[in-house]
């Protein structure tokens, strides 16, 4: 076999700076969607509304930026929408006891039609809205680091939200494992009765978790609409809310796990873009790739876990 050919392919599609940059960029909304899933799942809530929350974040990001001519205002508007949608979701499912899955589906459907409606009513266009007045988030060049070869281009020059996502991964870790509130959140997720009898307000902790998930999701959304091209497109969340849930499972509910699983998603999506340029496969097939990869990864992951268990059994049988 001709390994130099393989090497060439690897270099072209995976290991070059542009691809790795693409990976980090494309992984960013997935990281944030993953954190959205993580913070709720660790509090014992099955939140499937991430998709809708992302969509709202994307829309309000564009709207804020367009009307105030400032990307930062867009960011703020998006985060506010995340808080409001998260708050409503929490209010209905936790306080009024609406079924959490039904509520999640409702939010997703509502987000879809509401953003279509708003785009038409407010901007007077259908499908997609872009305008030179929408301010994008500027890239941030990190001094000193940016001049180092390889590392410079790899780590410097992304928009604010990319770095924010990295910071949030670390902060979420610190929150979960180093602060009393994180401890409470995990206790509430694992044994709410135990938490309750110790005077922890389970309802309040869960409320907070859902609000936080709204903010994480809205950041993912704003990255989609302002991070690259300044544009809102209908259904632009494109399943990332659900991919976030997959990534959270794959990452074992751990922030760092979520980060690396998202990178996997990012690299596959990057390769997809590359392949689109080459025109060797139908575009629809290529855009399916990241989802296919997620499915595959989850399956392999589950199988591996089962196998490990079986192997342990076999070993134990031998020893005994």
């Amino acid at each position, binding site marked *: 076999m001709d390994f130099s050919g393989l090497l060439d392919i690897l270099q072209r599609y995976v290991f070059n700076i542009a691809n790795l940059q693409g990976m980090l960029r494309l992984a960013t909304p997935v990281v944030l969607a993953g954190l959205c899933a993580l913070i709720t799942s660790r509090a014992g809530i099955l939140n499937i509304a991430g998709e809708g929350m992302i969509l709202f974040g994307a829309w309000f990001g564009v709207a804020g930026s367009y009307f105030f001519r400032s990307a930062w205002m867009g960011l703020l508007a998006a985060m506010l929408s995340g808080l409001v949608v998260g708050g409503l979701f929490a209010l209905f499912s936790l306080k009024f006891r609406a079924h959490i899955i039904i509520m999640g589906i409702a939010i997703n459907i509502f987000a879809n039609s509401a953003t279509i409606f708003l785009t038409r009513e407010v901007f007077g266009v259908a499908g997609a809205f872009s305008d030179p007045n929408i301010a994008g988030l500027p890239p941030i060049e990190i001094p000193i680091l940016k001049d180092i070869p390889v590392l410079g281009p790899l780590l410097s020059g992304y928009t604010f939200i990319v770095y924010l996502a990295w910071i949030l991964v670390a902060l979420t870790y610190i929150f979960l494992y180093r602060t*009393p509130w994180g401890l409470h959140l995990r206790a509430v997720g694992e044994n709410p009765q135990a938490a309750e009898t*110790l005077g922890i307000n389970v309802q309040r902790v869960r409320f907070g978790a859902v609000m936080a998930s709204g903010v994480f999701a809205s950041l993912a959304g704003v990255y989609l609409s302002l991070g690259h091209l300044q544009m809102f497109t209908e259904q632009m969340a494109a399943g990332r809310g659900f991919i976030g849930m997959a990534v959270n499972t794959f990452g074992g509910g751990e922030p760092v796990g979520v980060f690396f699983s998202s990178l996997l998603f990012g690299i596959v999506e990057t390769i997809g873009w590359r392949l689109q340029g080459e025109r060797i496969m139908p575009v629809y097939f290529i855009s399916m790739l990241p989802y296919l990869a997620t499915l595959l990864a989850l399956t392999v992951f589950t199988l591996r876990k089962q196998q490990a268990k079986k192997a342990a059994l076999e070993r134990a*049988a031998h020893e005994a």
Partner: protein
Amino acid sequence: MTAAVEMLGIRKVFPGVVANDNVDLSVEEGEIHALIGENGAGKSTLMNVLFGLHHPEAGAIKIRGNEVHIRKNADAIALGIGMVHQKFKLVPSFTVAENITLGSEPRHRGVFTDRKAVHDSVMEISQRFGLQISPDARIQDLPVGVQQRVEILKALYRQADILILDEPTAVLTPKETRDLFGVIRSLVANGKTVIFITHKLREVMEISDRVTAMRDGKVVGVTKTSETNPTQLARMMVGRDVLLRVTKTPAQPKDVVLQVRDLQVFDDRNLKAVRGVSFDVRAGEIVGVAGVEGNGQRELVEAIVGLRPAWGGEIKVKAKNLTTLNVRQRREVGVSCVPEDRYVRGVALPASIEDNLIVSNYFKPPIAQGPLLKPDVIARHAQEMIETFDVRTPSKDVPAYALSGGNLQKVVLARELSAQPDLFIAAQPTRGLDIGSIEFVHRQIVNARDRGAAVLLVSAELEEIMSLSDRIVVLYEGKIMGTIEGARATEEGLGLWMAGITEATPEVAGSPEVARQLVAH
């Protein structure tokens, strides 16, 4: 002397039940007060009221002489009341120290958990009260006895000086119970007051200073322990004389029904739990499996009924090999079982009593006709079972979770025994039951034997094993330590086998003193 706790005229109503009806309870400072009563008498409810988990419709509570209003759990904690529930409330993946300090953990610069302080304060408190514990162990890796210690420490960490223990010994081994009693005594020596709920009169006699007995939501008697005896307590609780010992005729063993040969079974952690066990059970005899819990009993039972694969060996019932059959097929062969955890495997909690009574035979006549169920037959069946087994319930349609432990167990027994099994397995059949229900269950087990069933009784209660079994096998670390006729076994001797000491034979275990010391180690 002022009372540490005074509850006056407490009334608590649940839909359809008056759980507490004008209940008075007075507990002196520094005493160990036993609270006894049949299943459903309202003991847990009363304590939940005191701990702020239930709100009474009427009544007043005084703590150390002052009238208090306990609106929520946190109020009770602030008043120095701590409670260890029947079902533990611990977070399995957290460490011991994290569980103990959860909700009021020491902080570091206001935002971070001060992990060193968490560790140290747990060490300090465990030393102060002489409750040994390793702060960094994870709850999921600890045996129940130690988990219970964590629950007690949790209360002590919150400066509880009135400690409520709701049936703390129900899940403990004899040794763990002894350790717990040591802990309770040292707590009282440190000025704490303890309220202790139990169904075991022997424990009441051993540890308590005074006893309050409840029946049907009312207090039916308060007495000093030194002025009473188990028979009197039993009568007070149940309202009639109770046989504290089973009466049965000698066994008439016939053909071998269950034949187990060199059985090997794994537990959930993939460790070998049953290591080459062989024994027989004949028709018309009760074989008791004794042993400290966790020595393979659960896995043994699950392997026989088909809930867990046998890794090696053979299980035969009436000469038919069971190992390749599924649960239903095994039941068809004639196996039935009262499972160890009645709430998980014994019944479907949200389903009605009626439905629970037919889950083992809903698919065949006379309950079903082709694909359809026959409601009138089912209703009649349920009514009949409720009467025969004396299930105390307002109707056959109430969900299983509304029944007290004893009545729930009667439903399970009714279902399992109405199948007229050839092999009847009863695993921990009286755990958590009151003495009246225990008497009933024991009579049913003996009846099944006399009808000609082979009975396999698994129990951690030595008393139960000894009073029911015609033959006793002792399991230790998944192996049979010894077999002995029921009539010849002594508690000390069995205790030695249960502790894994082989030299002694049960009937000649030397003086009881020596044996007791050996077991204690």
